[in-house]
């Protein structure tokens, strides 16, 4: 089939000009998950020929209900590569480049982003979206943003200084819980689940260096300090029990400590229970099956003799599904608890053999881990007289699972490509004509796909109301004082006022402060290729402030010390100092979470969670140490 034949219908329904522009365009697609699979297909069938796909995730069984470019034989392979291969099978003429990598890697620098006509996000988390947003602002490339949750979704276009950017609107942060609620006064199932997952699991099996889970609010106020110190005491005792890991008595020891000893100790604090229903400790001998008890006393594992307790169904889809969706009896929970403890203990010891600093991490799709969390949460709920949950519900709450289906991803990917048509229409469609599309759970007469107007930039947005400058330089030669010169020098940006330089919210230079750093090279302050500096210029005399994002590209053998591109000094927007102060807390959030949604999803959002589809972004990287 010739190209012209394939494109005839496009030329007819769109226009020959637009069809050509689409064929010449180069598209960066960030994410090859639920939206990504759909988007890649729709782009290829819309006359787009040059596509680069970046995704660091691998394929999981739970992706296959919607990510149609993947099949069972692809499980555990790189999404980006498999998506490319599957799409090429259907359209061998396309030019698709795939990277199994993190979009935040230095190889994807401003120059890389500048190599594309349009960037399209098919991401699942706030942090990566924020990052791509910033890079598109820096590279001055339009960004088509999108997300889906269950039957809902949205897509809109971001264009520097023409529309609101991704961070113009504050995002809802994930809910955190006070330590005392989790530790001693739980009242809801979620409190027990957080305890099981973020406290007991990570204490027993987490890597030793694992920091406090951010979901626990450890700010020391309102008596929190006392709670935290108690929590520490208990952890010490737990560590002693950990030494028994691998022996037959380990599961019983953990059980008795957390469901009996600790509960009894809490009970002894009579004041606490004057106006509250006191908890009920669990007694091992009353609840564990005969088989379990034998295992604890005899050497070796006895198997299936006598009145064996029913184990979790291993196979048989229907049976397993039913087992996951019913609320277990206390005895069943005890059985699952003890069994999963044994499995996890063995695994923990294995991973520690190769690396003594490692441990297990929470994975909602890892059955023994999820069994342990579900059973633990239920036993704790039982102790406190809180309704117990089935494993299925516990998994949703513990794993911050966002429901996802093929339909909404297909719809939103279609909308994204319509946005692309408008962005690339030669006669330039005004941005007001590129609507913000919102997909709702239609109910009867309600709108299914709504069109709203695109928002204007937020004049106090800390991200887009800034200058974007790219410096190419040798980071082993260029010094911080050269950066100051770039900002102040009349040959360069020529900005007046006090300068402070930050990297990832860490101050590395300020006029009249940290001046020792001026003679350090960029390399010495860990500003290497692909990093960016946030430079604040406070012009007291004029009563204005400016923000400049400076993106560093390392180059060897440059004829001059540096070359600049991007905004000129006069292009850099100002904010009246007074206004800037007021909006200081409008900083962009770092945690993952969800955007505004209606009803149904609010509950989910409280635990953070991810949009379709998972791309795991590494935790905040290196912190700068100045010595």
């Amino acid at each position, binding site marked *: *089939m010739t190209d012209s*034949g*394939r494109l*005839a*219908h*496009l030329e*007819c*329904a*769109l226009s020959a000009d637009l069809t050509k522009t689409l064929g010449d365009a180069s598209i960066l697609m960030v994410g090859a998950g639920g939206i990504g699979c759909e988007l890649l*297909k729709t782009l290829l*069938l819309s006359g787009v020929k040059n596509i680069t796909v970046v995704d660091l995730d691998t394929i999981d*069984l*739970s992706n296959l*209900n*919607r990510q*149609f470019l993947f099949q*069972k034989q692809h*499980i555990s392979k790189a999404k980006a590569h498999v998506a490319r291969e599957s799409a090429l099978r*259907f359209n061998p003429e396309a030019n698709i480049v795939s990277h199994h990598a993190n979009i935040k890697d230095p190889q994807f620098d401003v120059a890389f982003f500048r190599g594309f006509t349009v960037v399209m996000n098919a991401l699942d988390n706030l942090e990566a979206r924020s990052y791509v947003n910033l890079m598109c602002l820096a590279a001055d490339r339009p960004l088509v943003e999108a997300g889906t949750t*269950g*039957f809902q979704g949205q897509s809109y276009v971001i264009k520097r200084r023409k529309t609101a950017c991704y961070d113009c609107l504050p995002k809802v942060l994930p809910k955190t819980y006070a330590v005392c609620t989790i530790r001693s*006064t*739980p*009242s*809801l199932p979620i409190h027990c689940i957080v305890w099981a997952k973020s406290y007991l699991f990570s204490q027993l099996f987490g890597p030793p260096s694992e920091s406090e889970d951010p979901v626990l609010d450890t700010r020391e106020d309102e008596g929190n300090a006392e709670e935290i110190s108690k929590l520490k005491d208990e952890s010490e005792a737990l560590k002693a029990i950990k030494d028994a890991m691998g022996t037959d008595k380990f599961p019983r020891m953990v059980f008795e400590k957390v469901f009996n000893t600790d509960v009894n100790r809490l009970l002894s604090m009579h004041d606490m229970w004057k*106006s*509250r*229903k006191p908890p009920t400790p669990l007694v091992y001998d009353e609840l564990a099956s005969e088989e379990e008890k034998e295992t604890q006393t005899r050497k070796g594992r006895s198997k299936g003799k006598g009145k064996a307790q029913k184990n979790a169904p291993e*196979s048989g*889809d229907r049976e*397993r599904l*039913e087992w996951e969706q019913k609320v277990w009896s206390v005895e069943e929970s005890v059985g699952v608890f003890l069994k999963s403890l044994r499995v996890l203990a063995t695994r923990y010891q294995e991973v520690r053999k190769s690396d003594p600093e490692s441990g297990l991490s929470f994975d909602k*799709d890892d*059955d023994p881990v999820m069994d342990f969390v579900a059973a633990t949460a239920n036993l704790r709920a039982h102790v406190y*007289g809180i*309704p117990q949950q089935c494993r299925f519900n516990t*998994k*949703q709450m513990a794993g911050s*699972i*966002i429901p*996802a*289906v*093929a339909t*909404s*991803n*297909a*719809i939103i990917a*279609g909308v994204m*490509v*319509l946005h692309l*048509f408008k962005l690339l229409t030669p006669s330039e469609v005004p941005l007001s*004509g590129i*609507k913000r599309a919102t997909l709702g759970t*239609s109910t*009867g*007469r309600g*709108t299914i*796909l709504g*069109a709203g107007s695109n928002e204007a930039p937020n004049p106090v947005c800390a991200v887009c109301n800034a200058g974007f400058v790219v410096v190419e330089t040798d980071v082993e030669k260029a010094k911080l004082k050269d950066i100051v010169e770039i900002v102040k020098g009349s040959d360069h940006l020529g900005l007046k006022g006090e300068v402070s330089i930050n990297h990832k919210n860490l101050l590395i230079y300020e006029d009249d402060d940290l001046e020792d750093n001026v003679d350090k090279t960029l390399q010495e302050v860990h500003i290497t290729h692909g990093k960016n500096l946030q430079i604040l210029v406070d012009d007291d005399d004029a009563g204005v402030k400016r923000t400049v994002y400076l993106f560093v590209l390392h180059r060897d053998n440059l004829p001059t010390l540096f070359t600049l591109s991007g905004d000129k000094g006069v292009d850099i927007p100002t904010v009246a100092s007074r206004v800037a102060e007021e909006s200081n807390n409008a900083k962009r959030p770092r945690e993952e979470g969800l955007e505004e949604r209606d009803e*149904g999803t609010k509950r989910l959002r409280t635990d953070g969670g991810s949009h379709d589809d998972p791309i795991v972004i590494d935790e905040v990287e290196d912190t700068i140490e100045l010595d």
Partner: protein
Amino acid sequence: MSHPPDKKQQRYDRQLRLWGAHGQAALESSHVLLINGNATGAEILKNLVLPGIASFTILDPSPVLPSDLGSNFFVDPEDIGKPRAKVVAERLREMNEDVAGEWVGESPSTLLSTNPSFFLRFHLVVLCNHNSPGPSSSASSTPPVGSSTPSPSTPTPQSTSGLLSEKEVAALEDLLWERNVPLVMVRSYGLAGMVRVGRKEHRVIDPHTPTPDLRLQTPFPALQALVDSVNLDALDDHARTGVPFVVILCKAMEKWKKENPTTPPTASALKKLVLAMSKDLNREENFVEASGQAYRACGKYEIPRTARNVLEDPECDKVGVVGAPPPHPFWIVARAVRDFAREEGAGYLPHPGSVPDMKADTGKYVELATIYRQKHLSDLASIRTRVASVVSQINSLPRSTSTSSIDSAPPPAVGETREWAGSVQVKDEEIERWCKNASQVVVKRYKRVKDELGEAGVEAGEPARHLSQPDSPFLHYVLLRAVDRFRDVHHRFPGVLADEVEPDIRLLKKQVQELLKGWGSQGVTVPDEYVHETVRCGAAELHAIAALIGGIASQECIKLITGQYVPVVDTFVFDGIKSVGGVYEL
């Protein structure tokens, strides 16, 4: 990893969270027919195969044409000339080995006249009555201009074979209507598209629109006892912060009634009273919460309108009547719920059993949750008894020779079991779901295309009203209908012949006018630029529109199959130029 590769619940985990095991079971037992495997149709099936329907069948006599390559993801260049139904079915089957797929290469219009029972083998029928024509035909292959009835020697262009005429669509609709099989009609046409849902009677037990049921106006005895057990004045400061807002509001109502025996409170008056009852609003967050919920305690309780419509439906009256056809289980439970509300519930529906989260101490919250749960269970037991007695009464009636007026033949509606020839049964699970969602239930009766708008008594002004909105997406509905009539008359789509664009614009305008006249909507028109645009696109099926419209259509199919969420009522029209969608009840 620890998981064996064959677990359905893992594969379907993310969607089970939308429609649960019940919805999944319905999907996994549903058989779907797609008429025409064009780009839009293939997209719809893709979105149904992935979540795991039982099986699909593609009915399509067309071979793969060059024009399919540009828009249908599931065909390759080497497939040209092969049966399209076969190619698309095979590719779709690769995506989910749990789904069976068949294809039938016959003409739907022939089947409709020779073997109509073929269409009754399915739980859902999707009609994609469109085929993208090939690249602009050269003059030599142009059929005689203006011939409204091509001579037998002029073969009908292949691009329209397999399509149903307006009359045939109406016949198909009637056929499915009688058996209550849903029909979803879908079009992607240039930059426009539409999805239309039709079904005689669609019942939704779980629309996923829960509202809390707290019984604040008239606390039932167990709740009243809990309220009485709390003495706000006797509690210490700490204990006061643990009192659930439900109790606070009941206390406030009692106080109000004591002080104002004859006038019920307004929401704002009650709110004020609650705030005044707090000793310290900074500490007593539960009182602040109570003030925000005060409106729930005011006014008279009424069963929500849609649920009331269901309970007052004539189908409810027919349950248990001698000589009436055996009722659908839905209506048996509806009748039991209605009688319950009238006879023992004092106007209330059975309690759903759930309580919203609230600021309260563990003990009191758990106690409250238990009370509502108990109430739910006792209401449920009562409904069960009522259903059982209605069922035994029906089964003891002399068997009517006629079957149910609705769903009168296999396949039974998905997710429901019934013995057709034998006795009426109601699954306990259905009674439970009913009781949990009684205030949300919806029954929707759709209209057939032939009954739409003016023809069935809807105000003749309706289309005019839609069309008077500037740039209303409804314009595209009119145009798509006009295009179909154009095709019925001229045996091709407008604008597909390069040298016929101008005449086609004229001919399409004529169809538009006739259509509007038929709706009794003289005096309104479709702006010229819309007619031009429709002709200019040459009936092309664009993949971006096919993906979007196909996505929406498959979402509606899932709602129809699972009986959860409310499907669109009844037509969604999308304008891809303006990026605006509209929903119209036609």
